[in-house]
């Protein structure tokens, strides 16, 4: 990897080993006996990545999810889909660059893609408010989804936002109201909806395009009711407790699969999605293909009923002192029918 790449603190041993391998490789061009050592070190590198990435703590997961080189919506639009035709504007106020919407092709499927865009360069980041959408963004998403339903197109939502934008204009134009009606409409939209949290799933801003028949997340993404910093600020009265907050909020893919908040977790390439955009996109594509195949066959009434029941059963509480069966999904074994086999994803 290049020298100027963004290195997270716990990734340092990986980068150091990579640098050593690189040096040895140059050397091995002249000294063939160094090749064995290179091979040995490569094996060590794989083990090291496996070890580090299988033991990430929740806060480190948040750092990976926010990694600046992590693939974002526009990357997936290019790598997963054969074509993307962007459709702009909410036809009421403006065109929010924090949410991209448009038609796309995936194999033979014509789909509507809705995705948060954070931006890669500073200029782009500023123009799309670091992925924090305004009401016009959600209004645009809702309008395009309704159009998709009209023309029998499934909807794919890529979620990647720190949260909906907190600002004067956003409040004046009804941030709360648009997020509410977005969930309201998505819950009864008569077409299949697949949602994937690709990096950051920040609260209402994420859920605003997050009600679907399948809700999945990438392995090192996070999905939370509030940012760990925000939670630490409120409950611990100091942002320095963000690591404790991240742990307490149970926001990692593993926890959320256990709580049945997400249906599926899509495995990332070794060492995180930022190390191999192509492989990540490939796995995502396989997930979309499998889910679309399953969902498209279902009659709409059945699909909507299942979507309703899926969200209806979320929540854990006691009734008359005991936990009723339907709310006992906390520890329920989540048997996903369409887990991607690891080898299939590699093809």
């Amino acid at each position, binding site marked *: 990897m290049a020298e100027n790449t963004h290195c997270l603190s716990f990734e340092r041993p990986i980068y150091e080993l990579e640098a050593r391998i690189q040096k040895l490789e140059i050397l091995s061009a002249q000294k063939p006996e160094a090749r064995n050592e290179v091979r040995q070190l490569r094996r060590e590198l794989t083990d090291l990545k496996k070890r580090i990435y299988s033991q990430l703590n929740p806060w480190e997961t948040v750092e990976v999810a926010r990694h600046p080189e992590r693939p974002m919506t526009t990357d997936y639009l290019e790598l997963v889909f054969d074509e993307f035709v962007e459709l702009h504007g909410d036809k009421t106020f403006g065109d929010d660059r924090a949410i991209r919407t448009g038609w796309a092709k995936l194999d033979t499927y014509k789909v509507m893609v809705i995705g948060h865009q954070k931006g890669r360069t500073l200029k782009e980041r500023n123009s799309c408010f670091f992925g924090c959408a305004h009401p016009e963004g959600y209004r645009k998403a809702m309008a395009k989804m309704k159009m998709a339903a009209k023309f029998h197109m499934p909807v794919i939502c890529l979620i990647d936002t720190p949260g909906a934008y907190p600002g004067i204009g956003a409040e004046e*134009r009804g941030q709360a109201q648009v997020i509410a009606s977005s969930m*309201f409409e998505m819950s009864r939209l008569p077409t299949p909806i697949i949602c994937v949290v690709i990096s950051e799933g920040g609260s209402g801003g994420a859920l605003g395009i997050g009600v679907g028949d399948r809700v999945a997340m990438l392995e090192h993404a996070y999905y*939370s009711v509030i940012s760990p910093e925000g939670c630490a600020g409120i409950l611990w009265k100091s942002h320095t407790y963000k690591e404790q907050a991240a742990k*307490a*909020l*149970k926001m990692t893919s593993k926890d959320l699969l256990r709580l049945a908040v997400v249906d599926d977790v899509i495995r990332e390439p070794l060492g995180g999605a930022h190390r191999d955009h192509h492989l990540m996109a490939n796995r995502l594509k396989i997930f979309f293909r499998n889910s679309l195949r399953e969902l498209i066959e279902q009659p709409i009434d059945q699909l909507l009923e299942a979507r309703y029941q899926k969200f209806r059963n*979320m*929540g854990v*509480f006691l009734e008359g002192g005991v936990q009723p069966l339907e709310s006992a999904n906390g520890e329920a074994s989540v048997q996903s029918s369409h887990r991607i086999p690891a080898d299939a994803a590699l093809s």
Partner: protein
Amino acid sequence: MTHNLPDANSWKNVMNRPKRGVPEGLWMRCPGCEATIFRKEAEKRLGVCPECDYHWYVSARKRIQQLFDEGTFEEWDADLEPTDPLEFVDKAPYSQKLKDEQKRTGLKDAALSGTGMIRARRVAFSVTDSAFIMGSMGSVVGEKLTRCIERATQQHLPLIIVSGSGGGARMHEGMLSLMQMAKVSAALARFDTAGGLFISVLTNPTMGGVAASFASLGDVIFAEPKALIGFAGPRTIKATIRIELPKGFQTSEFLLEHGFVDRIVHRCDLQSEIACTIDYCGK
């Protein structure tokens, strides 16, 4: 002007003297205009300041008393209780916090629901109490509201939800709380498809995940005067954009001006306005 300032010692004596005067709780100070108000007078006006019309906090039980015809209210799902699915611990465990709040407020969680008559019209009703962990929505609030909405759908009843929540989705139950927003909204979508009338009443404060779900989904939205209503908290907004917020930002009047509220309704008129709306919609 010349004052004969008493020396420090004599002041100390004055301060240390035992307090005399009216018994505790007979008078109260209005948080709106700081005026001292005779408590009985305020209660007669349903907790509205006679001086400045400031609408004080009323508890969920009191709200039911104020709105329903006497003796007609029948509570639903009173045996739902919160638990601690994430084993959440901040400065203290969530399970302990729940016990403390239950003891302090006399409620099991932040919502009550049921049915009864408002001016002789039967309705399905829910209310959130902003005193219980900021009136935040966790699994119990979500479940109670959803069941209430589903019953209203089955029994073809008009639905009234009075919301008061400074917290939005409850952090202590993590994503399960956030998902309640989707759950309640989906139930409301079915109610809407079935042709039901939903009147949402916003009270001070209605923020975050509560504002961004059921509270904003009414066919008719009423707000009590001068309530704080919005998505992001004023402090969060200030920290993000680093400029002073305009006066009256995120109040009921601000929302009325920007088109997100149908009517601002004085607490004393709430009963009659609800009855009137039900009659117009022929429910």
